[in-house]
């Protein structure tokens, strides 16, 4: 076996976390001497899955997805007024700043897996936001985030930038150039090949839209509009959750 190939394998097994038998795997790769293209894909996928914890049992994957959804919602709700700030149409108030601080700290607590502080901060953001801004989507986001953070379970830190980026993209929406939106979508789809939990989280987070639906229904003028709204507010999140759940159960098979 060439030294170059072993150097390449040496780099790939570093994708696995420190507790994994990296040295033993290198020994197997050395002995088997098979071509790089037959070994590299499974080493990359296996390493990323091991490092992200994507190989956990189904209940823990759901718990992680719930926390990731909360992170997405906190990010999206906290940054919801930013597009308006760009045009100078939002008046900053002390309560608004306090809301952002609470939401930001709650998001940080979710990243580090501190559920109860995250829940307390998300609830504070909800109360402050409802008092001051009366922004229905932001209130909906904080509410669902708080509910998702209420789910008990072992600490599930969310050390993945994708939920934060998705939350930002959600709130920035039309400000983002098309290529950036497409790149983010491609990143989520690619990441789903490794770990379906971010897709599941996106589905769960989109259910926050249901909380705002009564406002939207009041503005509808035809049954077709109602159908489109139902498809978007219920169908899209349900589809994402269904795809991610199917992948999750398939991957949990021994």
């Amino acid at each position, binding site marked *: 076996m060439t030294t170059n190939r072993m150097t390449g394998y040496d780099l790939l097994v570093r994708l696995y976390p420190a507790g*994994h*038998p990296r*040295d*033993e*795997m*290198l*020994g*197997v*790769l*050395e*002995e*088997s001497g*098979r071509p790089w293209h*037959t*070994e590299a*894909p*499974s*080493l*990359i*996928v*296996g*390493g990323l*899955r*091991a490092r992200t914890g994507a*190989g956990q*049992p189904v209940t823990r994957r759901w718990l992680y997805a719930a926390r990731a959804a909360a992170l997405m919602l906190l990010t999206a709700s906290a940054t919801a007024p930013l597009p308006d700030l760009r045009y100078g149409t939002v008046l900053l108030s002390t309560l608004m700043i306090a809301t952002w601080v609470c939401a930001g700290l709650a998001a940080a607590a979710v990243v580090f897996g501190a559920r109860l502080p995250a829940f307390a901060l998300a609830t504070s953001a909800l109360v402050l936001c409802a008092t001051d801004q009366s922004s229905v989507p932001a209130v909906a986001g904080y509410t669902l985030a708080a509910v998702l953070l209420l789910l008990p379970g072992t600490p599930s830190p969310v050390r993945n930038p994708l939920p934060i980026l998705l939350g930002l993209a959600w709130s920035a929406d039309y400000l983002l150039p098309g290529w950036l939106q497409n790149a983010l979508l491609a990143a989520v789809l690619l990441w789903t090949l490794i770990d379906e939990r971010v897709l599941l989280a996106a589905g769960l987070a989109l259910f926050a839209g249901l909380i705002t639906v009564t406002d939207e229904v009041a503005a509808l003028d035809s049954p077709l509009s109602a159908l489109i709204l139902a498809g978007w507010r219920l169908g899209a999140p349900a589809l994402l959750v269904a795809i991610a759940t199917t992948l999750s159960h398939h991957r949990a*098979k*021994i």
Partner: protein
Amino acid sequence: MREPTYFILAALREEPRHGYAIIKRVAELSGERVALATGTLYQALDRLGREGLVEVVRDEVVNGRARRHYALTPDGEDALLAEAARMAEAARVVLRARPA
């Protein structure tokens, strides 16, 4: 149970084996049909270890590299036999119905 998992458990049923020996034995048992990549083997061993179906029974160092030997646990033996019985039953349905 996935096919590679079935053959890994079958390979370990005979005796404890290290990683490369498992790959070789799986290829033999499956008539060279299942060629396990190293990453696939260790993902499977991880899952099987977590489920309590295989365990590490010996550590050693060979040619300067760590090497662990894996063995089937009693739960692993039960799972393997249950899967074999399920597949035999499924095969019987088809083979019995075949015209002479």
